């Protein structure tokens, strides 16, 4: 039983390659089938998202893993094997567990702390389980990994502080208006950034959108998208009192909104707050607006500053997450050790017994002058030697099964005595 993972992600490979290697369900399934049928691999879970493609396997022999998986993956993704070879990473044993836990805790994600990866891992595992490409080890590993992912999210605040500009903007708006339900947002300029922010706002309950753009056509287009109302650009000051949130991203070379206009609007709306998000460069909104009573202005620099602060905060939380992962990797190792100790002892004894029988047979065949009594004595001696030699490893293994990090002993024993090659390859049957 040999655990390994092979994969590529945003750190190891350029986006062009990642795009190609990103596999859909069907191809994942084919890949799994191929690996199980053609190699010594006994369990497979392929995980493929837009930023990473990873194949988790359990193999009965250690050497089989890497090359065979690369070949299969290259074939499934229809890319050159050598292209892939340069961009992959490969982990074995406990490192595999550590890697998966880091992935599921989103420590390995492009945006650290993002929440989607947990769902993606869950989905990948479910699919693999449905297709019966998993067994005891991967079942246990993935179920445990999902719990680790949840624990990291509840025990640390890694996902709490947004780090993208548009979600930082929404986060700040929510510090003025607790509930965005039924609020009105005004979009000045119909760029992609303001559209993105508007989408975020809509998902938080903002229901009315006023859209204003130099070219009315684009405004109408965007207004339709958000079920909003197009507003003539020259007339936006008239509509300003209705807006609780203003997102500005026009390409205007000068200020589109001035302090005086905002002051007037503020009087008309009886000092209900307005939150201005100015993501245009050069800026659209007079910085003096920030000092108007109950007006709050964030430009792109302000938002980036908050995002950086949040990222630093996430870094701190990441350290807490790392600690949790270390604990959990150990606890998984313990389980594996417990699982492995007994069969390892059996295999060890079996191997020793076989060697003893073989060697006894060879020796006895050469010396046939021995009486039956003497033969018995020699056999007893051989058994005693085997038992005495194996006594200490057996006891230690049994002890190690219940100890933290004990799986290392098991693995060492298997390696030292060459037990892996003779392991039970038939695990997939159950």
């Amino acid at each position, binding site marked *: 039983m040999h655990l390994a993972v092979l994969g590529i992600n945003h750190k190891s490979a350029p986006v062009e390659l990642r795009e190609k290697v990103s596999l859909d369900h069907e191809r994942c399934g084919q890949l799994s089938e191929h690996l199980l049928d053609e190699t010594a691999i006994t369990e497979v879970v392929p995980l493929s998202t837009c930023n990473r493609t990873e194949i988790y396997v359990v193999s009965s022999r250690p050497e089989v893993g890497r090359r065979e998986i690369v070949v299969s993956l290259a074939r499934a993704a229809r890319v050159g094997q050598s292209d892939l070879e340069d961009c992959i990473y490969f982990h074995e044993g406990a490192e595999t567990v550590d890697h998966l836990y880091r992935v599921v805790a989103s420590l390995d994600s492009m945006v650290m702390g993002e929440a989607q990866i947990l769902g993606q891992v869950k989905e990948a595992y479910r699919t693999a389980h449905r297709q019966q490409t998993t067994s005891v080890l991967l079942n246990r590993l993935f179920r445990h990994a999902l719990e680790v992912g949840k624990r990291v999210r509840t*025990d640390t*605040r890694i996902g*709490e*502080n947004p780090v993208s500009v548009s979600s930082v903007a929404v*986060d*700040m708006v*929510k*510090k*003025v*208006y*607790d*509930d965005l339900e039924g609020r009105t947002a005004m979009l000045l300029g119909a760029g992609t950034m303001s559209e993105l922010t508007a989408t975020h706002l809509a998902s938080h309950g903002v229901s009315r959108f006023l859209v204003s753009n130099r070219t009315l056509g684009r405004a109408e287009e965007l207004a339709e998208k958000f079920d909003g109302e197009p507003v003539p650009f020259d007339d936006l000051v008239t509509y300003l009192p209705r807006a609780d949130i203003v997102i500005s991203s026009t390409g205007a070379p000068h200020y589109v909104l001035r302090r005086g206009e905002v002051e007037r609007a503020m009087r008309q709306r*009886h*000092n*209900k*707050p307005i939150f201005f998000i100015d993501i245009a460069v050069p800026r659209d909104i007079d910085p003096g607006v*920030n*000092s108007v*009573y*109950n007006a*709050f202005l964030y430009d792109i620099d*302000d938002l980036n*500053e*908050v995002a950086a*602060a*949040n990222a630093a*905060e996430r870094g701190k939380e990441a350290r807490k997450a790392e600690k949790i992962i270390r604990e959990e990797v150990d606890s998984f190792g313990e389980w594996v050790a417990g699982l492995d100790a007994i069969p390892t002892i059996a295999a060890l004894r079996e191997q020793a017994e076989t060697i003893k029988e073989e060697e006894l047979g060879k020796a006895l065949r050469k010396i046939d002058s021995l009486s039956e009594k003497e033969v018995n004595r020699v056999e007893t001696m051989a058994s005693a030697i085997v038992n005495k030699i194996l006594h200490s490893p057996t006891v230690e293994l049994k002890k190690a099964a219940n100890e933290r990090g004990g799986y290392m002993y098991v693995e060492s024993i298997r390696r030292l005595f060459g037990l892996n090659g003779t392991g039970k390859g038939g695990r997939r049957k159950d």
Partner: protein
Amino acid sequence: MDPLIKLEEILFIVAVVSYLVSSFLYIWYLITRSDRAVKLGTIILVLGLAAHTIALMLRWVSSGHAPMANLYESLSLFGWGIVLFFLIAQHFYPVKVAGSLVVPTAFLITSVAGVFYEGPQPLVPALQSYWLWIHVTIAMLSYGLFALAFGAGFFYIVQEYLLKKQYQNVVAAFVILLAALGIVLGLWAGSVWAEPAKVADELGRIDKIYTGEDTAKILGGAGFGLLIGAILGFVAGKGASRPGFSKRLPSLDVLDEVSYRAIAFGFPLLTIGIITGAIWADQAWGRWWGWDPKETWSFITWLYYGAYLHTRLTMGWRGKHSAILAVIGLVAVMFTYLGVNLLLSGLHSYTPT
């Protein structure tokens, strides 16, 4: 000494120490967001409250009346009420962060109560009426609500400065708050230090006589308090002056609403408190209003919060202006509650020392 009284004293000290430890844990939670700290803080707070509850009950038994008759009893009960309400609120709403302000406040009030400790004593004749607990409970509830409005108002101001990125104002807000608190505590410590001569008339009313030296001591105490408060405020303000800190506070909407609602409920309660006081005074002395300092100051407080409500309801004030009013309002409340008893003489100061 009566063992019951001894036990009450010990339990009271246990409560004060628990509140102190819990305060540190809640502040630690604000800084580090360590869940373990807040869990431990809550457990210690609950234990402290239990000890405090038993202490108050013992006091009730040994004095034979509700524990509201002197400053020690009243302050102790007030601190107890704050902790009780906070624990209930924390159970139902996400207000753990507020604990970093509320629990130290409760500690401060309870420990000040300890300074004014007096053994159990029967009520003076004027207080021997069922109006006592009605009047006092209602008045204290209203004070508590005004204190809540103050807290929400203060954090509104801090949150607004944070959201407006005016970090120097955040520092200023903390410096002013803690310096003001420092002055008050310094004044009080100074007056304890000065020990002014006290003259009591036969009814137990106290007048204090301050000499020039006394005044110097009191002013010195205030100056020292101001200095310490300003330094602490500067440190706290600097700590809070960063973009991420706004996340630890509730939204402006919520803070504004809490502050306003607390006053909207506190004002009618204060009104009822004054009415019950007037009816009681009419029964006791045959006059419903006599411009006694306590009466006058409750009237001043009432005028003030009445004005606050009018600015909000008829003039459409909201946000920072209202928050500033709510913050200043507590000065009037504290003076009505404590200042009158400690600094002015009148029918409400019964301290028989």
